């Protein structure tokens, strides 16, 4: 479970995150929905302790990220916005590198890696160097290395960004399977259809604040709009950033 309480972060004059609070529960997929520049990536970066918040708290399974960031990172699987691989290493070596950094014993590492290879259908690319991988192959590798330590909580920044239709569909299926395993899945997106199709709970963010929080149906009911896109526009109060 991930709990965020009144999180704030400013870059100079710009208040990127201005008092965000929400809870992502186990066995649920929670979506951070918002236009580009709403503060989603900055919020997630504070969750996985890459950035320190100016104020507010982040609790992962009850552990305060400000007090014990390493314990928090141990409980998180993170697919950041930046998902660069080591191009002179094979997919397998990329995954094993992160597994070793998590301190996983070799037998367990093999078992966990093989399970992910099957789930992500990436066996054919395991022993190829990642240089020249397609976007889909890169994302698969990045996800496998992020989840190789079997984390209870999974954070994904725009997971379907740049993927084609087939890759997007298998990504959604994979996220659903993680949910059914009882994990806490938190993802960010600026695509309403995706969030509506996937998420049990939607946290809408605009200008660094939470402007709505609930299931898709609740959001529709609250705004009186049948269509989630219209509901979204009504919630954030403008057409800003809806080009996607």
């Amino acid at each position: 479970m991930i709990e965020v309480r009144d999180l704030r972060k400013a870059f100079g004059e710009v208040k990127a995150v201005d008092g965000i609070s929400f809870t992502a529960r186990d066995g649920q997929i929670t979506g951070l929905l918002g236009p580009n520049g709403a503060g989603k990536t900055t919020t997630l970066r504070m969750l996985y302790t890459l950035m320190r918040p100016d104020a507010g708290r982040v609790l992962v399974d009850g552990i305060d990220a400000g007090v014990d960031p390493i314990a928090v990172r141990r409980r998180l699987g993170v697919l950041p916005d930046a998902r660069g691989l080591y191009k002179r290493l094979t997919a397998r070596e990329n995954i094993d590198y992160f597994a070793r950094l998590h301190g996983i014993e070799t037998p367990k590492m093999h078992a966990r890696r093989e399970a992910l290879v099957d789930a992500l259908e990436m066996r054919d690319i395991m022993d190829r160097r990642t240089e020249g991988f397609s976007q889909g192959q890169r994302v698969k590798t990045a996800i496998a290395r992020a989840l190789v330590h079997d984390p209870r909580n999974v954070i994904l920044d725009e997971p379907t960004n740049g993927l084609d239709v087939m890759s997007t569909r298998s990504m959604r299926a994979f996220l659903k399977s993680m949910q059914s395993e009882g994990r806490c899945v938190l993802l960010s997106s600026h695509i309403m259809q995706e969030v509506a199709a996937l998420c049990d709970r939607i946290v809408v963010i605009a200008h660094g604040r939470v402007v709505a929080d609930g299931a898709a149906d609740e959001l529709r009911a609250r705004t009186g709009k049948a269509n989630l896109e219209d509901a979204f526009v009504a919630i954030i109060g403008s057409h800003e950033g809806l080009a996607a």
Partner: protein
Amino acid sequence: MKTAAIVFMKEVRENLRDRRTVLNTCITGPLMAPLIFVLVIHFAIAKQVEQAEKPLPVSVIDARYAPNLVEALKQLGMEAKPPMANPEAAVRAQEANVVLRIPAAYGNAWRKGEPAQVELIYDASQSDSAQAEARLEQMLKGLGQRTASLRLLARGLSPALAPPIAIAERDQSTPQSRGGLLFAMLPYFFILAAFVGGTALAIDTTAGERERQSLEPLFANPVPRWQILAGKLGATSLFSLVTVLLSIIAFAQVGHFLPADKLGMVLDLGARFTITVLVAMLPLVLLLAAAQTLVAAFARTYREAQTYLTLLTFLPAIPSILLSILPFKAKLWMYAIPVVGQQTVILRLMRGETVAGTPLAVCVVCTTIAALVVCAITARVYQSERLAISA
């Protein structure tokens, strides 16, 4: 330190797969210093041989006033060239090294037994010209002495009366020390090897990793950043150390490729040279690796980092140039300054001198302290939030 070891192994493995890095570490870097060394020595020897044996071309103006003198100079190795219209301009333009002009009054003065003047036109700021002038002057002085002796004998006096002081020259210089500026620059090329060996990794592990957007996922792992940095510094130092070690080994072999007979000495760059230089260079390798990592950490892209590191590479050239221009005598404080200390050690060893235990210890301890300080600063920079953000 298990994390540092994991990072270290991964960086080493990844960079061993990069052909350009391996080529730089194992071939280009190590061979640079010894190659330049051999070239400089051969150049210096060729110069000496040329000075001693080759005829000296001198343009002679109005040779008709002193045919006997010109003939005697030819016997001593002067090659008389035809006169020129404007010798001063020719010397300034470096078209002639030295010009001999004989005034019309020469013959009269000679016959009367008075000092007969000849003019040497040259440019002391041009080393070729100054050397040619010195050689011609030497010839003239020799002839003068001979004539003086003959004149004294003709008057029934002992020639021993004429020179009240006899000078015996005992030159203590070696071909190396006569190499001057070029030779003083050699330790720099040596230190350059450490730079070359570490550059690729210093960039790859910082600016390169950020540009490839792999630093943010790396920092999401549950390990302290300083341990990641330690592994990366270790890998950078290892590559740099391999370059330095190969460079020293290649250097130690240089002696076999030099003509010892012409050099007038055997250049002994044996085991003691190898070990002493390696000991002095060890802490410097860490210092340079940390400095390169620190500088590269400020760069946004690989290319930007390359530019910064190239500028950084010129820094150790400054003490080299100063040491070659200023009158150089090794003082203890010099050993305390990183880079300068190593240069002093290497320079002394190459001149065939020894380095005592105390200066070497001062050199190693002070450079180690400096290396740890730079490591600590780099670790601080590594903690900064800005570092990991790619965009």
